[in-house]
Structure formats: C-alpha cells, structure tokens
C-alpha cells in the first residue's frame, strides 16, 4: 500500500541553524510534491511545490529537493528563526484527476 513517512518526532533546532525535514514515500509515483506549514489550531498554508523532473526548488530561506530514485524529499529552512516553529506537512500529488495525499507532518521547534 502507499505510504508517506515524515519524522513524527519533533525536531528541535537552535536559532540560526539550518533545519532539515524529511519526507519518504513508498509504492507511489507522484508527479508533484508539495510542502505546507501548519500552526496550532489553523489550516495548512502552502509553501512550495516541486515537480518530478525538478531536483531542487528555492524560495527565500526555503529549499526543497526531490529525489524520485530514493523516493525522498528534503525540506530545508536556512537561518532558522523562532517564528519558523510550526508543523510542516509534505503532500504527494500524482497529477491529473487524482487526489493529493498528506503526510502526518513534522513539528519543528526553533530555540532562541
């Protein structure tokens, strides 16, 4: 069966360091992979989308990589700040008229 794995444990990181979150998947061939941020008690907010033929995508302090051979995406936040503390969800999109599947998310805590 299809499976998406994100580190379910919280990730604690010192302010100013680079945070790296992992999204692994099995039995899946996504055309696109998306990352969302979710704050407590709120709906997810879209951050970045990467296509299967793209290796890397950047937006300000955010960087996403997508390795379809390893079936893995890495999400990096450089120069992390306490305001980056949130839960980050990856979502796999097979494309076409098919539904997106979300991972359970990784909780990031940036310590001042």
């Amino acid at each position, binding site marked *: 069966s299809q499976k998406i794995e994100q580190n379910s444990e919280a990730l604690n990181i010192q302010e100013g360091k680079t945070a790296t979150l992992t999204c692994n998947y099995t039995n899946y061939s996504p055309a696109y992979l998306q990352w969302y941020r979710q704050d407590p008690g709120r709906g997810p907010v*879209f951050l970045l*989308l990467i296509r299967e033929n793209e290796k890397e995508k950047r937006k300000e302090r955010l960087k996403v990589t997508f390795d379809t051979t390893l079936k893995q995406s890495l999400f990096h936040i450089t120069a992390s700040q306490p305001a980056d503390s949130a839960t980050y969800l990856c979502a796999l999109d097979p494309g076409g008229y098919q539904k997106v599947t979300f991972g359970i998310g990784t909780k990031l805590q940036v310590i001042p």
Partner: protein
Amino acid sequence: DVKVTQSSRYLVKRTGEKVFLECVQDMDHENMFWYRQDPGLGLRLIYFSYDVKMKEKGDIPEGYSVSREKKERFSLILESASTNQTSMYLCASSPSFGRAYEQYFGPGTRLTVT
C-alpha cells in the same frame, strides 16, 4: 488573496444529531475538499468535488455526505453524529485538476460530539 471560510471555529453537538459544516471560497476554484485531521493520523480526505453538483469519495467517506449546489460553497453533512467523529475538520479549494495547484485551506472547525 484566496479566502476559504468555514461556518464555525468550534462546534459541540450531541450523538445522533445531524450536523452541517459549511465552506465558502471566493476565488472561483473548481475543486473543493473536506478533510478531517486527528493526532497521529494526519489529514484524511473525506470527500472532494471538482465541479458543481459533482462529488467523489475520498479515503474515509463513511458516515458523511456532501453537497455542492453552487461553485463557491461545499457542505459536509454528518447524518447522525457519533463520538468517533469528534475531530478537526478542514475545507480546502484549488483550481482545476490537470496542473500542479496548491490547496488553500480554511481555518478549520473543531467539532466535539458528546
């Protein structure tokens, strides 16, 4: 900015009651979705709709129904609420399928069934 609004932030209902959750989006999006989110289980798709009067079952449709009479509005109905339907319910919308589009989420409705 895309805006997705949900009718209530918090809702408390009794077992057996019929519950209506309303969602409205203001960006003329074709697709709308209903999810529930539970600790340790993440976001699970209940139903989605890619056009007015169209609906498709998601991963966990049992105990739920939906209605989409107008493009901007997508309603989730719990015909007879049960305690295992206590959850955070999230509505989302996106432009057409066929391209890579992100989903825009509402603020969520925290439903408690007692």
